[in-house]
Protein backbone atom coordinates (compact mmCIF):
# COMPACT_ATOMS: atom_id res chain seq x y z
CA UNK A 1 0.00 0.00 0.00
CA UNK A 2 1.20 3.49 -0.85
CA UNK A 3 2.65 5.02 2.36
CA UNK A 4 1.10 8.33 1.25
CA UNK A 5 -2.21 6.91 2.50
CA UNK A 6 -0.83 5.85 5.90
CA UNK A 7 0.40 9.19 7.32
CA UNK A 8 -2.96 10.97 6.87
CA UNK A 9 -4.63 8.33 9.07
CA UNK A 10 -2.01 8.64 11.81
CA UNK A 11 -2.38 12.44 11.82
CA UNK A 12 -6.17 12.22 11.74
CA UNK A 13 -6.37 9.75 14.65
CA UNK A 14 -4.12 12.04 16.70
CA UNK A 15 -6.19 15.10 15.75
CA UNK A 16 -9.58 13.49 16.54
CA UNK A 17 -8.41 12.09 19.87
CA UNK A 18 -6.67 15.26 21.00
CA UNK A 19 -9.50 17.59 19.91
CA UNK A 20 -12.60 15.64 20.94
CA UNK A 21 -11.21 13.55 23.81
CA UNK A 22 -8.08 15.40 24.99
CA UNK A 23 -6.47 11.96 24.83
CA UNK A 24 -2.94 11.56 23.49
CA UNK A 25 -2.35 8.54 21.25
CA UNK A 26 0.97 6.87 20.45
CA UNK A 27 1.29 5.07 17.13
CA UNK A 28 3.15 1.78 16.86
CA UNK A 29 4.82 0.18 13.87
CA UNK A 30 2.39 -0.28 10.92
CA UNK A 31 2.19 -3.84 9.58
CA UNK A 32 0.43 -5.74 6.83
CA UNK A 33 -2.80 -7.49 7.80
CA UNK A 34 -2.61 -11.20 7.03
CA UNK A 35 -5.56 -12.54 9.06
CA UNK A 36 -9.16 -11.59 8.18
CA UNK A 37 -10.06 -11.55 11.89
CA UNK A 38 -10.58 -8.00 13.14
CA UNK A 39 -7.90 -6.71 15.47
CA UNK A 40 -10.32 -6.53 18.44
CA UNK A 41 -13.96 -7.12 19.54
CA UNK A 42 -15.57 -3.85 18.46
CA UNK A 43 -15.04 -2.42 14.99
CA UNK A 44 -16.37 0.68 13.24
CA UNK A 45 -16.08 0.49 9.45
CA UNK A 46 -16.41 3.15 6.79
CA UNK A 47 -16.22 2.81 3.00
CA UNK A 48 -14.21 5.05 0.69
CA UNK A 49 -15.04 5.64 -2.98
CA UNK A 50 -13.79 7.83 -5.80
CA UNK A 51 -10.10 8.27 -6.62
CA UNK A 52 -9.31 6.03 -3.65
CA UNK A 53 -11.63 3.13 -2.79
CA UNK A 54 -11.73 0.55 -0.02
CA UNK A 55 -12.48 0.53 3.68
CA UNK A 56 -11.19 1.83 6.98
CA UNK A 57 -11.83 0.01 10.26
CA UNK A 58 -11.31 1.31 13.79
CA UNK A 59 -11.06 -1.66 16.13
CA UNK A 60 -10.91 -1.77 19.94
CA UNK A 61 -11.11 -4.26 22.79
CA UNK A 62 -14.46 -3.80 24.55
CA UNK A 63 -13.02 -2.18 27.67
CA UNK A 64 -10.97 0.32 25.64
CA UNK A 65 -13.98 1.17 23.49
CA UNK A 66 -16.20 1.72 26.55
CA UNK A 67 -13.61 4.00 28.17
CA UNK A 68 -13.12 6.04 24.99
CA UNK A 69 -16.87 6.33 24.33
CA UNK A 70 -17.37 7.45 27.95
CA UNK A 71 -14.97 10.35 27.42
CA UNK A 72 -16.41 11.17 23.99
CA UNK A 73 -20.03 11.20 25.19
CA UNK A 74 -19.39 12.58 28.67
CA UNK A 75 -21.12 9.58 30.28
CA UNK A 76 -20.57 5.86 30.65
CA UNK A 77 -22.32 3.82 27.94
CA UNK A 78 -22.13 0.03 27.85
CA UNK A 79 -21.21 -1.61 24.54
CA UNK A 80 -24.66 -3.25 24.71
CA UNK A 81 -26.47 0.11 24.77
CA UNK A 82 -28.23 1.28 21.60
CA UNK A 83 -26.26 4.56 21.54
CA UNK A 84 -22.85 2.87 21.70
CA UNK A 85 -22.45 2.04 17.96
CA UNK A 86 -23.37 5.62 17.08
CA UNK A 87 -20.44 6.97 19.10
CA UNK A 88 -17.97 4.46 17.61
CA UNK A 89 -19.32 5.24 14.13
CA UNK A 90 -18.81 8.96 14.64
CA UNK A 91 -15.18 8.40 15.71
CA UNK A 92 -14.36 6.40 12.57
CA UNK A 93 -16.27 8.97 10.51
CA UNK A 94 -14.13 11.84 11.82
CA UNK A 95 -10.91 9.84 11.42
CA UNK A 96 -11.72 8.88 7.82
CA UNK A 97 -12.95 12.36 6.87
CA UNK A 98 -9.83 13.99 8.28
CA UNK A 99 -7.52 11.47 6.59
CA UNK A 100 -9.04 11.66 3.11
CA UNK A 101 -8.67 15.44 3.12
CA UNK A 102 -4.91 14.89 3.24
CA UNK A 103 -4.68 12.31 0.45
CA UNK A 104 -2.47 13.83 -2.24
CA UNK A 105 -4.67 15.29 -5.04
CA UNK A 106 -7.41 12.70 -4.63
CA UNK A 107 -11.16 13.30 -4.60
CA UNK A 108 -12.70 10.78 -2.19
CA UNK A 109 -16.16 10.27 -0.69
CA UNK A 110 -16.90 8.37 2.50
CA UNK A 111 -19.93 6.24 3.35
CA UNK A 112 -22.02 6.28 6.50
CA UNK A 113 -20.29 4.09 9.13
CA UNK A 114 -21.24 0.59 10.28
CA UNK A 115 -20.28 -0.90 13.63
CA UNK A 116 -19.77 -4.58 14.44
CA UNK A 117 -19.70 -5.78 18.05
CA UNK A 118 -18.66 -9.32 18.85
CA UNK A 119 -15.63 -11.41 19.65
CA UNK A 120 -13.77 -12.97 16.72
CA UNK A 121 -15.61 -11.18 13.90
CA UNK A 122 -13.85 -10.99 10.54
CA UNK A 123 -13.38 -7.98 8.28
CA UNK A 124 -12.97 -9.15 4.70
CA UNK A 125 -11.44 -6.89 2.06
CA UNK A 126 -11.08 -7.34 -1.69
CA UNK A 127 -8.35 -9.89 -2.28
CA UNK A 128 -6.27 -7.60 -4.50
CA UNK A 129 -6.33 -4.80 -1.91
CA UNK A 130 -3.70 -5.31 0.80
CA UNK A 131 -4.64 -4.08 4.26
CA UNK A 132 -2.37 -2.34 6.73
CA UNK A 133 -2.81 -2.27 10.50
CA UNK A 134 -1.84 0.85 12.44
CA UNK A 135 -1.59 0.00 16.17
CA UNK A 136 -2.22 2.77 18.70
CA UNK A 137 -1.83 3.04 22.46
CA UNK A 138 -3.83 5.41 24.63
CA UNK A 139 -4.39 5.85 28.36
CA UNK A 140 -7.70 4.03 27.76
CA UNK A 141 -5.98 1.00 26.22
CA UNK A 142 -4.88 -0.21 22.80
CA UNK A 143 -6.73 0.09 19.50
CA UNK A 144 -6.00 -0.34 15.81
CA UNK A 145 -6.90 1.31 12.53
CA UNK A 146 -7.06 -1.10 9.61
CA UNK A 147 -6.76 0.45 6.16
CA UNK A 148 -7.46 -1.41 2.91
CA UNK A 149 -7.51 1.10 0.07
CA UNK A 150 -6.82 1.08 -3.66
CA UNK A 151 -5.54 4.12 -5.54
CA UNK A 152 -7.81 4.30 -8.60
CA UNK A 153 -6.32 7.59 -9.79
CA UNK A 154 -2.87 6.02 -10.06
CA UNK A 155 -4.32 3.07 -12.01
CA UNK A 156 -5.99 5.44 -14.51
CA UNK A 157 -2.80 7.49 -14.87
CA UNK A 158 -0.79 4.32 -15.58
Amino acid at each position, binding site marked *: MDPAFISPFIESVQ*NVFSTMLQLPVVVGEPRLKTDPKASYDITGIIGLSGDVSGAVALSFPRTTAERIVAI*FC*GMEISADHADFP*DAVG*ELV*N*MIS*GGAKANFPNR*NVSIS*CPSVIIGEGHRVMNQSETPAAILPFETDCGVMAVEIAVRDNAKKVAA
Partner: protein
Amino acid sequence: MKILLVDDSKTMRNIQKSVLSELGYTDIEEACDGQDALSKVGAFGPDLILVDWNMPNMDGLTFVKKYRESNKLTPMIMVTTESEKIRVIEAIKAGVNNYVVKPFTPDVLSQRIAETMQKAAA
Protein backbone atom coordinates in the same frame (compact mmCIF):
# COMPACT_ATOMS: atom_id res chain seq x y z
CA MET B 1 -32.98 31.76 19.59
CA LYS B 2 -34.31 28.60 17.95
CA ILE B 3 -31.72 26.22 16.55
CA LEU B 4 -32.25 23.18 14.32
CA LEU B 5 -29.53 20.51 14.63
CA VAL B 6 -29.31 18.15 11.66
CA ASP B 7 -26.95 15.20 12.12
CA ASP B 8 -27.45 11.45 11.79
CA SER B 9 -25.23 10.86 14.83
CA LYS B 10 -27.07 11.20 18.12
CA THR B 11 -23.67 11.45 19.82
CA MET B 12 -22.72 14.46 17.71
CA ARG B 13 -26.13 16.09 18.27
CA ASN B 14 -25.66 15.65 22.02
CA ILE B 15 -22.17 17.17 21.90
CA GLN B 16 -23.45 20.17 19.92
CA LYS B 17 -26.48 20.52 22.22
CA SER B 18 -24.14 20.61 25.19
CA VAL B 19 -22.08 23.42 23.61
CA LEU B 20 -25.25 25.32 22.67
CA SER B 21 -26.61 24.90 26.17
CA GLU B 22 -23.39 26.37 27.62
CA LEU B 23 -23.96 29.35 25.32
CA GLY B 24 -27.49 29.72 26.67
CA TYR B 25 -29.34 28.26 23.68
CA THR B 26 -31.88 25.71 24.83
CA ASP B 27 -34.67 25.97 22.25
CA ILE B 28 -33.30 23.21 20.04
CA GLU B 29 -34.99 20.85 17.59
CA GLU B 30 -33.18 17.80 16.24
CA ALA B 31 -33.34 16.06 12.87
CA CYS B 32 -31.51 12.86 11.88
CA ASP B 33 -31.13 13.58 8.15
CA GLY B 34 -32.06 16.06 5.43
CA GLN B 35 -35.52 14.60 4.90
CA ASP B 36 -36.30 14.73 8.59
CA ALA B 37 -35.05 18.33 8.69
CA LEU B 38 -37.25 19.37 5.76
CA SER B 39 -40.27 17.87 7.52
CA LYS B 40 -39.54 19.80 10.74
CA VAL B 41 -38.12 23.11 9.59
CA GLY B 42 -41.43 24.74 8.60
CA ALA B 43 -43.19 24.17 11.90
CA PHE B 44 -40.13 24.89 14.05
CA GLY B 45 -39.02 28.06 12.25
CA PRO B 46 -35.37 28.07 13.32
CA ASP B 47 -33.19 31.18 13.60
CA LEU B 48 -30.09 29.06 12.89
CA ILE B 49 -29.49 25.64 11.35
CA LEU B 50 -26.43 23.45 12.02
CA VAL B 51 -26.24 20.72 9.39
CA ASP B 52 -23.96 17.72 8.82
CA TRP B 53 -22.97 16.74 5.26
CA ASN B 54 -22.84 12.92 5.12
CA MET B 55 -26.18 11.50 6.22
CA PRO B 56 -28.44 8.68 4.99
CA ASN B 57 -31.71 9.33 3.05
CA MET B 58 -30.87 12.96 2.24
CA ASP B 59 -27.42 14.45 2.73
CA GLY B 60 -26.76 17.89 4.14
CA LEU B 61 -25.82 19.50 0.83
CA THR B 62 -29.10 18.41 -0.78
CA PHE B 63 -31.00 19.70 2.25
CA VAL B 64 -29.25 23.09 2.04
CA LYS B 65 -30.09 23.42 -1.68
CA LYS B 66 -33.74 22.44 -1.16
CA TYR B 67 -34.17 24.70 1.87
CA ARG B 68 -32.60 27.65 0.08
CA GLU B 69 -35.24 27.34 -2.71
CA SER B 70 -37.76 28.78 -0.25
CA ASN B 71 -35.63 30.42 2.45
CA LYS B 72 -32.67 32.62 1.60
CA LEU B 73 -32.26 34.25 5.01
CA THR B 74 -32.03 31.76 7.86
CA PRO B 75 -28.31 31.27 8.57
CA MET B 76 -26.90 27.79 8.16
CA ILE B 77 -23.58 26.36 9.37
CA MET B 78 -22.24 23.14 7.86
CA VAL B 79 -20.68 20.98 10.61
CA THR B 80 -18.90 18.13 8.89
CA THR B 81 -15.83 15.95 8.46
CA GLU B 82 -15.61 17.16 4.84
CA SER B 83 -12.69 19.55 5.05
CA GLU B 84 -11.37 19.75 1.49
CA LYS B 85 -11.40 23.25 0.01
CA ILE B 86 -13.52 22.06 -2.93
CA ARG B 87 -16.22 20.82 -0.51
CA VAL B 88 -16.23 24.07 1.46
CA ILE B 89 -16.72 26.03 -1.78
CA GLU B 90 -19.49 23.63 -2.85
CA ALA B 91 -21.29 24.14 0.45
CA ILE B 92 -20.93 27.93 0.35
CA LYS B 93 -22.27 27.96 -3.23
CA ALA B 94 -25.24 25.85 -2.10
CA GLY B 95 -26.07 28.46 0.53
CA VAL B 96 -24.36 27.78 3.84
CA ASN B 97 -23.15 30.86 5.71
CA ASN B 98 -20.31 29.27 7.66
CA TYR B 99 -18.38 26.03 8.03
CA VAL B 100 -17.09 23.98 10.98
CA VAL B 101 -14.84 20.97 10.42
CA LYS B 102 -15.18 17.95 12.72
CA PRO B 103 -13.39 17.35 15.02
CA PHE B 104 -14.01 20.74 16.62
CA THR B 105 -13.52 22.29 20.04
CA PRO B 106 -16.45 23.96 21.83
CA ASP B 107 -14.64 27.30 21.33
CA VAL B 108 -14.56 26.92 17.55
CA LEU B 109 -18.25 26.02 17.35
CA SER B 110 -19.29 28.91 19.58
CA GLN B 111 -17.05 31.33 17.66
CA ARG B 112 -18.59 30.29 14.31
CA ILE B 113 -22.10 30.64 15.70
CA ALA B 114 -21.32 34.13 17.03
CA GLU B 115 -19.75 35.20 13.69
CA THR B 116 -22.67 33.82 11.72
CA MET B 117 -25.35 35.48 13.83
CA GLN B 118 -23.49 38.82 13.82
CA LYS B 119 -23.30 38.77 10.02
CA ALA B 120 -26.96 37.78 9.74
CA ALA B 121 -27.98 40.66 12.01
CA ALA B 122 -25.87 43.25 10.12
